[in-house]
Every structure is written in structure tokens, then in C-alpha cells.
């Protein structure tokens, strides 16, 4: 059952050099209880997409077209058409978000208990001792040691992992339907990463949430995802379930990403880890044609100058490449 359906979402930023189309005609569906991973390198528009769904894009950015249909069946609403006060009732209550930087996403002047209580007091109108009980319950749920003491501590007194736990407690305090996690573990070291991911998976199944996980770490994707959407220069270039992406990637970009993971089996002594040459192109006034063409090893002359449809090779899922093949 689909809980959120994003249709042709396009977000642009006005700059002095021209219009930057950071998110270009994205469409996807998310089912109840499902985990969708959005993968791509830095600057491909992953975070802008996440912020666009929450309608948290500020100037000079704006959402120019598309629909974000939230809810199932006939009762769905287009979040992009809601007025601001109705949208506020969705944020934090129905759709919650975890940010990349646990260090700076907590306000340094309030205790974490106070901040976790903010969404609760906004949406469920509870105060005083009841609120405190709920906050401590949340902290306990995210595995914070000594929750009653931690609730009265300030962000600077907590370690990075504990702050991210506090952020998760904050996001989940109103048991949202959808959790959008924007690189939730990037700022944490590897052992803490594993703990946080375990925690998120456990809470997801307990609360029956859907999750959109934005990341550039393919290890996390393999661990967490039900379905994977690979993003490049503001567009999805390949969609598939986890087996399809890791087992039979069709798009040269996805294949390049997968090759750049260090292999576990012994590599020849002086071999180098393959990388994708070049950089993500400037998104200002993009020419028609495949955005990956300049870095692609399978590039043909006719890749440029014409727009690539969703599935030109008839793979049966979105693979935005004229020359998609498994090898």
C-alpha cells in the first residue's frame, strides 16, 4: 500500500549564473513499512529532494513542478498544495526527518529533553510531567543510557552517537508514518554507525514506519534497503530492488559505483581501486542528453543531444541509458 507518491518533482535554485535544476523530474512511490534508499554522490540533489518533500526549501530555491501525494487511496493530499499551517501539522507528526549533522542539528541552548519534547508539545499538546515521561520513554527506546539524567543534559555533553540517538528520539517522538533520514550516519564512526542502523531498523519494524534513507554509502544500502534508486545530477538513473542493483546493475554509473567498493577477496598486489573519472557536471543550464555522458566509458556519439527516456532498452525497470547492459 503506497503511503507517499512523488510525481515529477522538480526543484530549482536561482543563481547569478542561471537556473540550477537540483532535482529534475523525480518520481517514486513508497509503500508502508518499506525502506527506500536514494544513492548518489555528493551534490547530486539527494538532500534537496528530501527537503523538497518536507517543503523546507528556502530561497533562492523553489519547487517548480510536481506532486507529493501523501496518504493512501482516495484520501491522499498533495503536500505541495497544502497551506503552511496544514503543512506544519504534517512535519514532525506524519513525516519526520533526521539530519546529517548530529553535532549541529540540536540547538545548543536547550537540554535534549526539552528539544525532544518540542514536537510532542506542538503536535500532541502534552505538557509537564506527562511530557517528561514521554520524553524519557523515547530516550529509553532509542537506547540512551540513563535516560532520566541525559534528558537534562545539553547537546555538548553528549557524544556524537548519543546525539544522533537523541535526534532519532526527536524525529520518532510522534510516531510518524514516514521517516526521512538524510545521511544519518555519515558523521559517525563505523561502530556507532552499525549501532544506529540497527536501532533504526529495529524501530522501523516496531513502529511500522516507512523510511527514505538518503546516503552515498553502498554498504548501508545493502544492509538496509528494500529498493534502491540511484541518483545522478538531479535525476534517477536506475531504479531496482536491492538484488537487482547489487546483482545485475544495468546503468554504467551504478556499475561504476559498485566497482569502486573495495573487494573483500584478495586483490592483485599492485592493482588500484577503480574510480569513476571526472566530476559531477555543473547543473546550470544542462544540455539535453545523458548527464553522465562525459564520464561514461560506454559513451556513444548519440548519447548527447537527445533526452534519455526512462527505459530505452526495455529492461523492465527504470534504467536511463541507451546502451544499458549487464557488462
Amino acid at each position, binding site marked *: 500500500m503506497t503511503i507517499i507518491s512523488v510525481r515529477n518533482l522538480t526543484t530549482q535554485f536561482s543563481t547569478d549564473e542561471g537556473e540550477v535544476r537540483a532535482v529534475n523530474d523525480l518520481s517514486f512511490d513508497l509503500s508502508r513499512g518499506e525502506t527506500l534508499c536514494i544513492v548518489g554522490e555528493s551534490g547530486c540533489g539527494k538532500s534537496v529532494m528530501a527537503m523538497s518533500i518536507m517543503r523546507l526549501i528556502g530561497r533562492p530555491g523553489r519547487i517548480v513542478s510536481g506532486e507529493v501525494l501523501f496518504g493512501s487511496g482516495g484520501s491522499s493530499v498533495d503536500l505541495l498544495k497544502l497551506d503552511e499551517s496544514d503543512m506544519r501539522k504534517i512535519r514532525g507528526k506524519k513525516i*519526520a526527518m533526521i539530519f546529517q549533522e548530529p553535532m549541529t542539528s540540536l*540547538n545548543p*541552548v536547550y537540554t535534549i529533553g526539552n528539544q525532544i519534547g518540542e*514536537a510532542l508539545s506542538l503536535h500532541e499538546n502534552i505538557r509537564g510531567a506527562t511530557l517528561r515521561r514521554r520524553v524519557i520513554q523515547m530516550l529509553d527506546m532509542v537506547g540512551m543510557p540513563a535516560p532520566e539524567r541525559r534528558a537534562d543534559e545539553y547537546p555538548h555533553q553528549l557524544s556524537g552517537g548519543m546525539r544522533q540517538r537523541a535526534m532519532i528520539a526527536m524525529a520518532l517522538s510522534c510516531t510518524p508514518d514516514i521517516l526521512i533520514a538524510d545521511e544519518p550516519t555519515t558523521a559517525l564512526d563505523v561502530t556507532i554507525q552499525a549501532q544506529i542502523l540497527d536501532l533504526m531498523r529495529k524501530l522501523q519494524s516496531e513502529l511500522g514506519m516507512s523510511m527514505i534513507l538518503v546516503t552515498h554509502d553502498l554498504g548501508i544500502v545493502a544492509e538496509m534497503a528494500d529498493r534502491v534508486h540511484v541518483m545522478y545530477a538531479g535525476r534517477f538513473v536506475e531504479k531496482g530492488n536491492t538484488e537487482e542493483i547489487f546483482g545485475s546493475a544495468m546503468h554504467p554509473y551504478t556499475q561504476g559505483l559498485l566497482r569502486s567498493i573495495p573487494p573483500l577477496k584478495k586483490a592483485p598486489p599492485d592493482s588500484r581501486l577503480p574510480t569513476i573519472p571526472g566530476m559531477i557536471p555543473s547543473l546550470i543550464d544542462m544540455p539535453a542528453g545523458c548527464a553522465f555522458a562525459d564520464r561514461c566509458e560506454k559513451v556513444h556519439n548519440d548519447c548527447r543531444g537527445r533526452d534519455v527516456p526512462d527505459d530505452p532498452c526495455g529492461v523492465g525497470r527504470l534504467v536511463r541509458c541507451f546502451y544499458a547492459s549487464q557488462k
Partner: protein
Amino acid sequence: MRHSSLKKKSAVIFQGFSPRAAIFAIAFLAALAMFAPIIAGDRPIAMYCDGEVFFPTFSDSISDEKIDELKSKGAWLVMPPIPYSPSSFDFEAVLSPPSKRHILGTDGDGVDVASKLVWGARVSMSVGIVAVGIAIALGCIFGAIAGYFGGIVDWAVSRLIEAVMCFPAFFLILTILAFVGPSIYNIMIAVGLTGWTQVARLVRAEGMRIRELPFIDAARASGASDLRIMLRHLLPHTLRPVIVSASFAMGGAILAEAALSFLGFGVPPSVASWGSMLSDAQRYSGFGWWLTLAPGSAIFIAVMAYHSIGERISESGGRDA
């Protein structure tokens, strides 16, 4: 290099009070202002007569005749340390220099200078607090709106700030007072209405920095409204520059009140204020040094103390956030 050499040089000249001395000076003046009725006045604080206790200072129902009657009965009484009111005249000691009877002397009407000084502290301290309170409230509102929303709102507020700033503050205050009439409350409001621009500019600048920080997005993502974000998440972070500017403004407001009273736009003649004391002293400037020394020193100490505190806080200010 340049900075250190400057510092070395300026160590020779007077740099203001130490923080401890400044806080002590302000606390002392505030205490004078608060306890003025029991420090200076011509009515006894307490009287004891025939098993009954009276507190004439705190009770207007005890008339002066009654006090005289009690005195004649041989009542036991406690007088304030300065036993003169700022509106009672001692005709036997007009223009007397500091003496045992009048520790800071008397003015041309025979009014005790020490008593006027103590009651004048009330005017100066309250003008400082109320005027700066108005300035900070307005400055925070306008600054937070401009800094948080940016864009056209920021443009409009910034032009308003510039419009207010481009008038010389003192003459703007004089003009306002010319229309509404001189009174202590009008001074407070006029000084507040002209003083908010500095605070607004600081809060605006801090606000523009803070609004880009991730925790503002996090607050919006949990459903907080713009007003809530401004009050709860933005303003607390602008506190340090606001406190610094408030303590400078406090000195400025005291100075403004003194200047206005000196020019006759301030408090009515029946109310003692440091500025009006200086104004009165002009007539005797040839010989009445005690008339200028006392209020002049009081103004200097008050302004300097606030200034030193502001300076000290702004020096100590690294950013914590």
C-alpha cells in the same frame, strides 16, 4: 603586531573600571535608588512613643504635625542617614560648602545636595532601565524579523532602521519631547524609540547567521512555526551582542537624560535629577564647586560602570555555538 602594541600603549591611560568595581558601582547606585526614602528624607524612619511604633517614611497618613507632637512628647526616633528631603529648604545654610551638617553642601535654595543626589539616582537608573528595555524589545522584534525572513522583509526593515538612524538621535529626542512635553516618562520612551536601531542591526546580523544552522531546519522539520523558531531558537543565540549593546546603551540613556534635564527638557523642577542639578549649578559655577562635583561624578561613575561592563563582556566573547 599592531593590536598588541595598541594594547600596551593603552594600558597607561584609564581603561575603565575593573568588572568587580563596575558591578559594585552599579549595585551601589541601584541600592541608592531603591532605598532612597530611607537614605535621605526629613521624616523619621521609625518613631517609638508610649508603647506605639510609627513609620512616618512609609505612611503618609502620619502628618508632619503629628510627628512634631510626638517629638515634643519625647519620642524615641530613627532618622535617615541624610536627614533632609530633596524638596525641603534649609534657609540657615544656603549655598554652604560641604560641612558636617550637609556632607555635600547645599544649593542656592538651601536644599541638601546629598539628598538630591540620592533621589536623582532613582531618575537616572529608571531612565536607563526603561529606555534600554524599550530599545531592546523593539530591536529584537525588528532585528529578528529582518534576519530570519530576509529578502524583501529584510530590505524594508533595514531601510526603516536607516531612516531612524540618519536623524541625529539627540535632536530627534529633543523634537519628540517638544511635541509631547518634557516628563520623565516621555524621556524614557523617546530615548527607547531612538535607541533600538543598534540592537536591531546586531540581532539581524546574528539572525542571518543562525537561520542557516541545521538546528533551525531541524526545528522546522518537527513542525515549529516561524514565530516559534524566532522566539525559541533564534533570539537566545543573539543574547550576547544584545547584552553588550544594552550595557553601552544604559550608559548612553543616563547621559541622554542628564543632557536633556540640563537643557531643561527633562524632569520638572520639583524632581531632582543629576542633569537638572548640573543645570542649577551653572548659576554658581564661579565658586560652587560642590554643586557640580557631586552630580558630575555620579554621572561619570554610572556611565563608566555600564561602559566597562559592556566592554568586558564583548572582550570575553568568543562564539560558543
